[in-house]
């Protein structure tokens, strides 16, 4: 097909054919082979099939500088001419690509503005922060310092001068050690070890049974240590208790030690008894004091036996030990099955206490032991008294150095008890003679009630027994069939008979017939007789003087006599307990000038003797002291001789 072309395009045709020829030539030259391989004619399906002639036909193409897309027939309305006119000159520019640049001329407005901004940013880093807002507000164009708030000030603290300090610790201690490691050494050591292990195994097996015991022992020991702790505390508590008591009864303690009644000088012969402490125990309220005894070793300790004198009111009994250091609570408390009637503390072994009970038992308590059971009790023994034991007295140890004591009871027997190992062995000493009024065949049935017993201080085989019928019998331990002497002392019950501590022949007795009688054992009739208006329940000699004694009566009075001063009258008759309280016992303290009296309320009152009552006649100074007992004896003798 021939396409109509514009003239002047021969060159272009040639160019186009030339291009085509180039293509073909290109195929043959340079990279011909590769192209040759890939040159298989691939016809697109919509290609025009042209004949060769048509293919050889040369067609001219023309390139123009006009935009083929630009409209060629743009028409504009012309207002001047009033009609549409074609615009000849159409814009032929075709924009293929557009890119806006970001470069600004530096002299333009925007350029200058930008430059100013840049400068601002560079300077802005050095300003103070707090004023930044103000600064920024005020420094759009220029850096202004805020004169009101902004102040720059710098200072430098003092830097301490650097110092060098060095320290050297002690190096860990070193020791030297040396040994040799040989085969035989090793072997020996192993053998030893094995032997040791075998031994320990055997021990273990043997001790397996013991282990449990050990454990229990350990527990015991632990418990004991715990107990020990408590008991150690108990010691401390005891001391504190005593201190507290001393503080409470401070005035009493002062009186006890130092007070001497000055008014005695004005009273002539008379003396007074100053009440000191009162000892009472709550649980003993219903019981009455039946026996008192001072401890010889510890002069502030005394024993109180509690029971009942009434036949109809028998209950339990108590044995209490008080000390003057602690008046508010007893040191030792023992409960007995029946009322305590009498007690005695061993002279040398002050922890042994013999007690006679209303039911006829005798018991021995050991204060050292913690138990509150007697170590000996005559309950089971055959020689037990069948009736109340009225008096017990310790004796010297017998030939086998066994302790022994003697008791007299309402069944009329005087029995000696020996502490052999774990039991009491009795020996009848003597039987009290039956009074004449009882027919002979009833001799064994109706006994003579022995009420009091006392042993001679020096000749301790000689003793006195007082009876219910008012007789006093003097006997000897060596004569078991008969009494040596009989004194018709009182009309009624003899409540107490006591030897004089100094004079070997003198003894005193008292009874319910209101009488106190002093006897010389060689004479049948009393040397002195005193009537005290009521039943006399107890009488005691003073340990410091052979002529002083005190008696207590059922009207609550204590009578103190000093025969050396006044042979007929008491130096002191003082009521020491409240109304209707009977006094039953009196004892002098062996060392201190105090006496204790027991009443039927279970109270024990301690009283201090005023100086008048304790007078020792001083004949010549320097002569008195060494001759104490002899002077006493002489004194007594003087008195007696005047009456014989």
């Amino acid at each position, binding site marked *: 097909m021939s396409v109509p072309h514009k003239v002047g395009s021969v060159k272009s045709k040639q160019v186009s054919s030339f291009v085509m020829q180039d293509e073909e030539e290109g195929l043959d030259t340079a990279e011909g082979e590769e192209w040759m391989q890939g040159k298989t004619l691939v016809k697109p399906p919509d290609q025009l099939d042209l004949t060769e002639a048509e293919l050889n036909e040369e067609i001219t193409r023309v390139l123009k500088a006009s935009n083929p897309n630009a409209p060629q027939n743009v028409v504009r309305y012309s207002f001047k001419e009033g009609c549409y006119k074609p615009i000849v000159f159409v814009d032929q520019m075709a924009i293929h690509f557009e890119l806006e640049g970001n470069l600004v001329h530096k002299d333009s407005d925007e350029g200058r503005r930008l430059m100013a901004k840049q400068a601002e940013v560079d300077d802005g880093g050095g300003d103070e922060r707090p004023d930044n807002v103000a600064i920024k507000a005020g420094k759009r164009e220029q850096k202004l310092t805020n004169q009101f708030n902004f102040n720059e000030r710098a200072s430098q603290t003092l830097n301490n001068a650097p110092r060098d300090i060095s320290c050297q610790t002690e190096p860990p201690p070193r*020791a030297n050690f040396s040994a040799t490691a040989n085969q035989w050494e090793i072997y020996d050591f192993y053998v030893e070890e094995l032997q040791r292990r075998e031994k320990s195994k055997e021990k273990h097996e043997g001790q397996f049974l013991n282990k449990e015991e050990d454990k229990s022992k350990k527990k015991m020991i632990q418990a004991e240590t715990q107990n020990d702790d408590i008991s150690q505390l108990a010691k401390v508590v005891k001391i504190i208790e005593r201190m507290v008591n001393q503080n409470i009864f401070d005035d009493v303690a002062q009186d006890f030690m130092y007070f001497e009644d000055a008014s005695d000088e004005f009273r002539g012969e008379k003396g007074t008894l100053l009440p000191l402490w009162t000892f009472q125990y709550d649980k003993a309220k219903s019981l009455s004091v039946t026996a008192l005894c001072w401890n010889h070793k510890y002069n502030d300790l005394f024993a109180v036996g509690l029971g009942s004198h009434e036949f109809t009111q028998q209950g339990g009994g108590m044995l209490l030990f008080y000390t003057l250091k602690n008046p508010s609570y007893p040191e030792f408390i023992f409960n007995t099955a029946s009322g305590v009637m009498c007690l005695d503390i061993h002279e040398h072994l002050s922890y042994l206490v013999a007690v006679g009970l209303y039911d006829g038992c005798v018991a021995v308590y050991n204060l050292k032991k913690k138990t509150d059971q007697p170590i000996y009790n005559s309950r089971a023994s055959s020689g037990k008294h069948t009736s109340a034991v009225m008096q017990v007295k310790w004796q010297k140890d017998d030939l086998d150095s066994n302790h022994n004591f003697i008791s007299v009871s309402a069944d009329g027997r005087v029995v000696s008890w020996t502490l052999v190992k774990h039991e009491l062995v009795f020996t009848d000493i003597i039987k009290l003679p039956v009074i004449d009024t009882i027919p002979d065949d009833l001799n064994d049935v109706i006994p003579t009630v022995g009420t009091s017993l006392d042993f001679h201080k020096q000749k301790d085989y000689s003793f006195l027994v007082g009876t219910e019928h008012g007789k006093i019998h003097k006997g000897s331990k060596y004569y078991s069939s008969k009494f040596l002497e009989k004194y018709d002392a009182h009309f009624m019950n003899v409540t107490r008979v006591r030897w004089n501590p100094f004079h070997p022949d003198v003894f005193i007795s008292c009874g319910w017939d209101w009488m106190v009688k002093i006897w010389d054992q060689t004479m049948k009739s009393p040397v002195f007789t005193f009537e005290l208006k009521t039943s006399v329940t107890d009488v005691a000699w003073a340990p410091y003087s052979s002529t002083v004694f005190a008696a207590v009566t059922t009207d609550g009075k204590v009578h103190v006599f000093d025969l050396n001063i006044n042979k007929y009258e008491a130096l002191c008759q003082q009521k020491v307990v409240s109304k209707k309280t009977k006094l039953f016992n009196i004892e002098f303290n062996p060392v201190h000038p105090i006496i204790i009296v027991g009443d039927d309320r279970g109270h024990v009152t301690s009283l201090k003797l005023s100086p008048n009552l304790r007078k020792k006649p001083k004949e010549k100074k320097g002569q008195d002291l060494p001759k104490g007992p002899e002077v006493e004896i002489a004194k007594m003798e003087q008195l007696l001789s005047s009456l014989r």
Partner: protein
Amino acid sequence: MAETGDGKKEDADYKRLQSFPLIRHTDMPEEMRVEAMELCVTACEKFASNNESAAKMIKESMDKKFGSSWHVVIGEGFGFEVSHEVRNLLYMFFGGSLAVCVWKCS
């Protein structure tokens, strides 16, 4: 034959009986002692043929645990005299014929 057999058995017994680790002398505190002993036993069992490696292992472990610097000697026949820091010495036997001495001295 039987006797030698018995002899061998006895030896074996001895070996069995005596191969437990046995401390000959030490002044270490309880924990350190136990740990060191365990360590030695482990090391000796691991390097039964090579004393040097066993010693090396023990020394390094002790250094790490208890601080430097430790010294270890393992052998069957030797004598020694050493200065050691107090409460840092262990001298023990192991395996019936092996002796191990471990001490610290910086």
